[in-house]
C-alpha cells in the first residue's frame, strides 16, 4: 500500500538542502506549519529562499528560521507587521534579500508553477513601480504585465486531516496558500493534526488530492504561532 507517512518532523525535512527554494504555507499565524519550521531550524539548511505571504512574527516559526541566519532571500507580499521584527532588522542591515510580489500575483504565480503555465498576464501592478522592468502588453485595450511561474524545491504545509495517500483538508482560513504550494513544489511535506485511513475523507471534500503531496507527518497537537507569541516564546 502507498503510504506517505513520515515517522517524524525531523525525518520529513531531512533532505532540505543548502540553497533550496522553500515555500511555507500560512497567512500570518494562520496555517503556519510551526513544527516543520522548527524541525528545519534543527536541521540547519542554509542559504534558503523562502516563499510565504509574510516574514513571520515574534521569535518563533518563520521569524526564528530567519533569525537563525538560514534565509538569504524572502519572496512575499507583506514583509512587515506589528509583530514582525526579525526580517525588518536584517533587511535594513542588507543581510537579506527581498522580492516583493503582490498577494494575488504571488498566489497565481505559485498556482501557475503547479499547473504547468510558465507565464501569464495580470493587470496587477500596471502603472506602478512594481511593474518596472516587467514586460507589458495590451489585450482588448487594457494593459497587463507578464508574470512567470514560481516553483520551489520544497513546500512545508500544515493541514487539518490527511490520509496516507496525501489527501488533505484544511481548517477555515488556515487554508490560504497551502493548496497552491502543494502543487508547486517538487517535494511537498505536510504536517497534519489528524491522520486518518485512506477512504475516511469523503472524495467530494478533499481539497488537496494526494498526487500533490509527498510526505505526511502527524503533529496531533500543533502549537499556534499566536499562542507562542502571547507566551513570549522563542526558538530554538
Amino acid at each position, binding site marked *: 500500500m502507498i503510504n506517505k507517512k513520515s515517522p517524524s518532523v525531523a525525518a520529513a525535512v531531512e533532505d532540505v538542502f543548502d540553497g533550496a527554494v522553500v515555500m511555507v504555507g500560512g497567512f500570518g499565524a494562520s496555517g503556519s506549519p510551526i513544527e516543520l519550521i522548527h524541525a528545519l531550524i534543527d536541521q540547519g539548511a542554509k542559504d534558503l529562499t523562502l516563499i510565504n505571504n509574510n516574514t513571520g512574527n515574534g521569535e518563533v516559526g518563520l521569524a526564528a528560521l530567519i533569525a537563525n541566519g538560514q534565509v538569504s532571500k524572502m519572496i512575499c507580499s507583506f514583509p512587515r507587521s506589528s509583530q514582525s521584527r526579525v526580517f525588518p532588522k536584517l533587511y*535594513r542591515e542588507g543581510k537579506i534579500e527581498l522580492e516583493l510580489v503582490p498577494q494575488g500575483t504571488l*498566489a497565481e504565480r505559485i498556482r501557475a508553477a503547479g499547473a504547468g503555465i510558465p507565464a501569464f498576464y495580470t493587470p496587477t501592478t500596471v502603472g506602478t513601480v512594481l511593474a518596472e522592468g516587467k514586460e507589458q502588453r495590451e489585450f482588448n485595450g487594457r494593459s497587463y504585465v507578464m508574470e512567470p511561474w514560481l516553483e520551489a524545491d520544497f513546500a512545508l504545509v500544515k493541514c487539518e486531516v490527511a490520509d496516507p495517500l496525501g489527501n488533505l483538508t484544511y481548517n477555515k482560513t*488556515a487554508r490560504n496558500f497551502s493548496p497552491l504550494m502543494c502543487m508547486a513544489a517538487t517535494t511537498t511535506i505536510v504536517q497534519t493534526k489528524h491522520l486518518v485511513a485512506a477512504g475516511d475523507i469523503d472524495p467530494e471534500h478533499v481539497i488537496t488530492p494526494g498526487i500533490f503531496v509527498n510526505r505526511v507527518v502527524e503533529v496531533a497537537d500543533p502549537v499556534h504561532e499566536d499562542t507562542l507569541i502571547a507566551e513570549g516564546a522563542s526558538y530554538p
Partner: protein
Amino acid sequence: MSTGWTREQMAARAALDIPDGSYVNLGIGIPELVTQFVPEGREFIYHTENGLLGMGPPPAEDERDLDLMNAGKKYVTTVPGASYFHHADSFSMIRGGHIDVCVLGTMQVAANGDIANWSTGAPDAIPAVGGAMDLVQGVRNIYVITQHTTKTGEPKLVEKCSYPLTGPGVVSRIYTNLAVIDVTPDGFQVVELAPGITFEEVEKSTGATILPAK
C-alpha cells in the same frame, strides 16, 4: 467651526452608496466601520482576501478561533452561507471582477483617480504591498474613505500623487470628513458637503482643482 463628518459618519455615508446584495471588500481602518452602518433592508456579503466569503463580526474574546482571521489578521466569524477557498480562488474573485465594491483608506488620491496607499517611497521604508494592487485593479468600484487632510494639514486629495502609486485611475468616489467627491473626467467634483461645511473650505483643503456640486 464644523469639522464635518466623524469616522462613523463617513463610513455610514459610504454604506449608503453600496447596493443591496453587493460583494464587498473592506480595507483596514475606517472602511471596516462600514459593516456597522448597512442601511435598513440591505445585505452585503463581505469578502476577505485570505480565503473567506461571508465574513461576520469579530467574536467574543473567549470564542476566538485561531484559524479564522481576516486579511488584517484580526479574528472574525462567519455568517450562514459562508465559504472557504484558497488564495488563487480568492484573488480570482478580485482580479476577475466579481467583487462589486472595495472601500479603502489612502495616503493620497489624485484628480485622475490615481491612488497611493501602500508606500511612502522613503528610502529606508520596508516595502509591503499585500493585496492592495490586486484590489484596485480588479474590483469594479473603488471607493476611498479618508480624512480630507493629513494630521499636519497637508491635502490628501492632490493633482498628482507624490507617493508611489497603488494603481492609476482606479478610484471612482471619495468620502472625506468634509465631503463626498467623485472622480470625473473633469477632475474632482463635489457630490455632497458635510453639514456645516462650505465648498470654499473643501476647496482650500484640496490640493487640486475641485468642482462644486452640480
